[in-house]
């Protein structure tokens, strides 16, 4: 018995020697201090105020070098007693896609090859709504609205029970107290499980290093929102977190020429969004999936 234990110890020793040799290889490949700092950066939610300050300073310097503009990177937290909700009047939307382009510009989305868009406007034959099989995503008509068609803009619905947050293996995405679903772009490992889980195609992936023309950059950004992103991390609509937390409307709401888009605080009984829910014929897209979207489609008349 004693002999047997000895052999086991011997074996463990042999095995650990092998493991040590294997582990030393990655340690040998050295990297610069900045790279090491990036590599070890903590998850945003776990950063102290001090950590955040340091990271923001580093980012501001880096963005200045890259885009030649002084950035304002906010880390402003959610306003108490707010839960953001969105209303979209389907009887008004004309499918002009002004919201799409305003969104891309406001949020510093990548313009690689084709634009990375957070809003998608579907063109549907009248009489079709739920079955999207015949939806046209890339309609390109000289004039909108086209006769016989309705338009259905879709973006992140900021579900109250978001499947994308549930599936993320590393807590890189979460719901803020004001209901906005955000991503820590520096923590995302790029597995794209959230893209598979989203029923609304609310998430897009930076398949390459994002490219934004210097003259089109928007330097007023939020850490969890529209700051320039990096390759191979996921991103998504944040209801323009950088705007709504300082009392402005999201860019898509401002850009809409027909007043299709409404926005407000669901907890405030006097807000426009509450008026819509109380008085209009409201529905939520794919309600059967039970994700409790805070995005209300409605018809006025």
């Amino acid at each position: 018995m004693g002999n047997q234990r000895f052999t086991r110890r011997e074996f463990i020793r042999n095995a650990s020697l092998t493991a040590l040799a294997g582990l030393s290889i990655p340690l040998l490949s050295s990297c610069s201090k900045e790279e090491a700092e990036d590599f070890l950066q903590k998850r945003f939610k776990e950063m102290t105020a001090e950590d955040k300050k340091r990271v923001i300073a580093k980012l501001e310097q880096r963005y200045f070098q890259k885009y030649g503009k002084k950035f304002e990177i906010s880390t402003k937290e959610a306003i108490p007693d707010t839960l953001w909700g969105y209303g979209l009047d389907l009887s008004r939307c004309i499918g002009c896609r002004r919201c799409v382009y305003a969104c891309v510009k406001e949020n510093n989305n990548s313009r690689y090859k084709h634009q990375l868009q957070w809003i998608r406007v579907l063109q549907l034959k009248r009489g079709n709504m739920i079955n999207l099989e015949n939806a046209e995503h890339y309609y390109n008509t000289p004039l909108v609205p086209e006769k016989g068609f309705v338009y259905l803009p879709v973006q992140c619905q900021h579900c109250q029970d978001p499947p994308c947050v549930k599936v993320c293996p590393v807590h890189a995405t979460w719901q803020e107290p004001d209901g906005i679903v955000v991503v820590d772009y520096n923590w995302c490992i790029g597995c794209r499980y959230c893209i598979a889980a989203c029923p609304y195609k609310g998430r897009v992936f930076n398949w390459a290093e994002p490219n934004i023309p210097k003259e089109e950059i928007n330097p007023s950004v939020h850490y969890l929102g529209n700051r320039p992103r990096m390759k191979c991390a996921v991103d998504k609509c944040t209801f323009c977190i950088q705007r709504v937390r300082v009392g402005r409307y999201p860019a898509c709401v401002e850009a809409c020429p027909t007043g299709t888009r409404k926005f407000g605080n669901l907890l405030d009984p006097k807000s426009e969004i509450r008026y819509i829910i109380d008085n209009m014929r409201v529905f939520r897209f794919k309600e059967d999936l039970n994700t409790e979207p805070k995005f209300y489609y409605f018809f006025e008349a």
Partner: protein
Amino acid sequence: MNGLQATLKETWHFYKGTLNLVVKGSKAYYAWCFFLLAVIAVGFIFYLKQHDVGLIETNLTNEVSWGLYIANFTYLVGMAAAAVLLVVPAYVYHFKPIKEIVVLGELFAASSIVMAILFVMVDLGRLDRFWHMIPLIGSMNFPQSLLAWDVLVLNGYFFLNLFIPVYLLVKFYYHKEPNWKFILPFILLSVPWAVGIHTVTAFLYNGLAARPFWNSSILAPRFLASAFCSGPAIIILIFQIIRKVSDLKLEDEALFKIAELIAYAMFLNLFLLASELFKEYYSHTVHIESFKYLFQGLHGHNQLVPWIWSAMAMNVTAFFIFLIPYTRKRFSTLNLGCLMIIVGVWIEKGPGLIIPGFVPDPLGEIYDYMPNLLELMVSFGIWATGLLVFTLLMKVAIPIQTGKFTHVGYVERTYRLEEEQQAWKQSSSPKF
């Protein structure tokens, strides 16, 4: 002091012996290894390009965001099931012919897991942030995320499938009877664990309400059934090769037994598929779109159709080959059946499972995904890595099993080894 010296001497003997075994071999062995190394090198170069520029180098898009890599991953997790098929009869029922090859089967499972993990790693956009997934060090979303579960069960399975054969091989190396009281719980644990890795991997897709093609409760049983076909089919082929190139003796009976098990598994696999097809086609809801895309084409997009129908043809043919004793027990037809199952199940449980999950996407868009050259090369590179790992493991494990490579204390007594091993094998049953 004396003990330390002996240990050092033995360690040196072990490493020298291992190195000798790995470095020396026949011309065919060299050719095989260098071929694999070349494929690995090419795959690695292609991967570097993907790592440098981003996943834009693949044909993946926001519509079909998982492709060939994840398809291979799914298939290989299934492959690793093979071990369980060998463990159950070998250890629990002392089925004699299979017992001799069970160690090799488990090393095969371990090699499959290596490939599966590599496929996940090349699919990750940010490999540099891989550590975020490590429990305690990173921030693992457990138990919410099924991907976190998968990381845990796959690594656990990898550990089991290395630990058990290594323990047994060490015992063989020292010519000792394994301590069955110690190792048997691990062996028994590996059986439900193998079922577990398949179930968890199936649940990974199964739990997504956004993807009706995967969101069917029959998915996990289908996974298991198909895994119990493809894994053993590869094992039958590999053991024939091992039998030819080494002096490990494997009885035909063991291979035929495995083939018989494949027939049952394939029947179950086809039955479950038929159940699913009936439900989708008879009820004919909007959820049928993905099935249509796969089996008959959707709005003129039919590039997967020839693939899935050849897979169906191969699976059905192989089922009859393995069902009929006459064709099952002839090596020409047996091997043909194995090849058909390996390819057929790969199509069905790889690309045939992943791609239609994304087509049409949740907003109804149809994107025709086909992997590009880079994805193919990286995938070949990973397959070659797995095969190389398995080859090298075999190169060391087989001489230990046959008693050719042994503890320094036994070198002088080599002439007795054959008899001792024979005696150990003939001892009625392991004592546990």
